[in-house]
């Protein structure tokens, strides 16, 4: 009996020994990996440790994590702050509008593009549609401010020429318009790029499916619906899950730029979202712990949404994570 235990022990010892020996034997392979692993620990895991400050009263000069504990005080403050209610509303509304409009439109775009038979035309449209994705929101805002300008901007001029409006509309000057401007400009910038993945999966559809459907007498729209859309459904669901998991991540760059880095006070009631709130309250007003709590709230909700969406998808046999 004791012999057996001893044997087992030496067995596990040998295993551990084997790990170290194997590690040393492939030290060149390990040396390729380890610098990056250390980098990830420093730049991803130390900030995770830093979240502790959301439960403390952090002040400049404190060693991180060694401040006075205050429990859930900052979270209580957060949820009773009327500003945060507005911020949460803006975040959810902008995200939902983007999900409702800017998620399906690239799919439709990909399907419609697939219907164009002229190869070079198709390629040209694709190339141009990606272009705005590669510019920053700083540049994007510069372009769009001019495009929508009250002072001879293209959109206002066109609307006036058509007699639809009398006076130019101040598109970026009114809070009520902001949600739609955020959705519209996001679509302008990312439509082409967001369709890439659908275009790519459409090209992998077996052409025989279309021929078989034709023999069965399927019309054009029937083919688009029952073959094209049906074939890319797994991709659609996968991306939808990620979109849901990002619900509280509104586009920080976009909103900062369109509001002149939150300097445009008229827009704030409609434009302030969690990301900009964390930045504004945390770094400009120096309420570090409070802002860290708001940030943590966002991360936790996002991960719960992601897991929830994944679970829902797995019920229909489409689990991805």
């Amino acid at each position: 009996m004791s012999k057996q235990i001893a044997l087992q022990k030496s067995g596990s010892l040998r295993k551990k020994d084997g790990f170290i020996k194997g590690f040393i034997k492939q030290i060149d392979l390990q040396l390729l990996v380890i610098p990056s692993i250390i980098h990830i620990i420093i730049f991803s895991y130390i900030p995770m440790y830093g979240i502790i400050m959301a439960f403390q009263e952090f002040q400049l000069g404190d060693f991180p994590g060694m401040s006075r504990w205050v429990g859930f005080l900052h979270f209580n403050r957060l949820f009773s702050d009327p500003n945060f209610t507005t911020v949460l509303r803006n975040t959810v509304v902008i995200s939902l509008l983007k999900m409702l409009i800017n998620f399906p439109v690239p799919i439709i775009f990909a399907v419609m593009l697939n219907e164009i038979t002229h190869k070079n035309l198709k390629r040209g449209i694709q190339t141009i549609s990606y272009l705005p994705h590669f510019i920053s929101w700083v540049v994007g805002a510069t372009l769009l401010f001019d495009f929508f300008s009250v002072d001879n901007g293209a959109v206002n001029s066109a609307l006036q020429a058509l007699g639809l409006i009398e006076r130019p509309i101040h598109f970026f000057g009114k809070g009520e318009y902001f949600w739609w401007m955020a959705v519209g400009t996001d679509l302008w910038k990312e439509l082409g790029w967001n369709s890439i993945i659908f275009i790519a999966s459409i090209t992998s559809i077996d052409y025989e499916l279309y021929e078989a459907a034709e023999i069965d007498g399927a019309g054009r729209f029937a083919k688009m619906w029952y073959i094209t859309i049906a074939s890319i459904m797994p991709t659609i669901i996968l991306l939808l899950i990620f979109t849901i998991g990002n619900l509280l991540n509104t586009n920080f760059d976009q909103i900062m730029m369109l509001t002149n880095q939150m300097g445009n006070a008229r827009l704030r009631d409609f434009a302030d979202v969690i990301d900009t709130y964390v930045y504004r309250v945390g770094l400009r007003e120096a309420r570090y712990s409070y802002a860290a709590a708001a940030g943590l709230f966002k991360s936790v909700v996002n991960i719960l949404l992601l897991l929830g969406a994944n679970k829902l998808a797995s019920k229909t046999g489409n689990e991805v994570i």
Partner: protein
Amino acid sequence: MKRRKTFGDRLFDTINILIMLIIVLATLYPFINSAAISLNDANDTTKGGITFYPRVFTLRNYELIFTNPKVYNAYLITIARTVIGTISALLFTSMLAFGMAHRNLKGRRFYTILCIIPMYFGGGLIPYYFLIKGLGMMNSFWVYIIPSLVGIWNMILMRTYFMGIPSSLEESARIDGANYFTVFFRIIFPVSMPIVATIALFIGVGQWNAWFDASMFITKQELKPMQTVLLSIISEAKFAQQLAQTTAGAAADASNIGKGVQVNVRSITMATMIVTILPIIMVYPFLQRYFVKGIMIGSLKG
């Protein structure tokens, strides 16, 4: 065996192409218009009506911005961060990806978990800010380079690609006594150009377009990149006017001080913007065929 086109088909095709052309026009027009304004005489621009092409052609606006030391310096910073940042991040990310592509890598499970968690959960802005501060990277050029050395998402794309390379390629070199460094740099890296080009484009564009790190961590004017200059122009009216006045200098005579300065701001804004995006517009169409492939590889893995 193709069915003949019916009237309905033709109608559909026409409408479809029309819609596509409208999308293309709406995408391109702001770019074309800005380019036209940047190439048009500043005083002529005030009269309005510049659409697709300049009316009074001039390169004066570009001359003005490139003789401004602020712009000139910022451009150099942007080029430096893009070149150094892309090469170094490509190196670190691909080395990690190469290691992770090996099933025999000791501790692979642990490394994988370590990489996956930050993809879904992070510390957020405030703790990150204090980390950078604690590392003494405030007001240092290296804040552009070091924090972005490893991109986990990019690593996964590369790892998937590496795993698709036939292992015989590596094994024969290993039998000849080559170590993993040699295998990686001499054999695997050269045959992986499609994914390397894709990731290089992603990292490069990210570096070229970044503005937030500069606005959070850098206060020294001489370290500010091009995006910050453009940002200052559009968000601070004073900055733009100063830039227009100092660059235009004596050129702005008494007659157009009021309106003239205003015009110069718009012309100079557009010229600065065009200069900021030109390198990207020139590079990306050539890399397009790579990144479509690259995204496809990534999407198969999810």
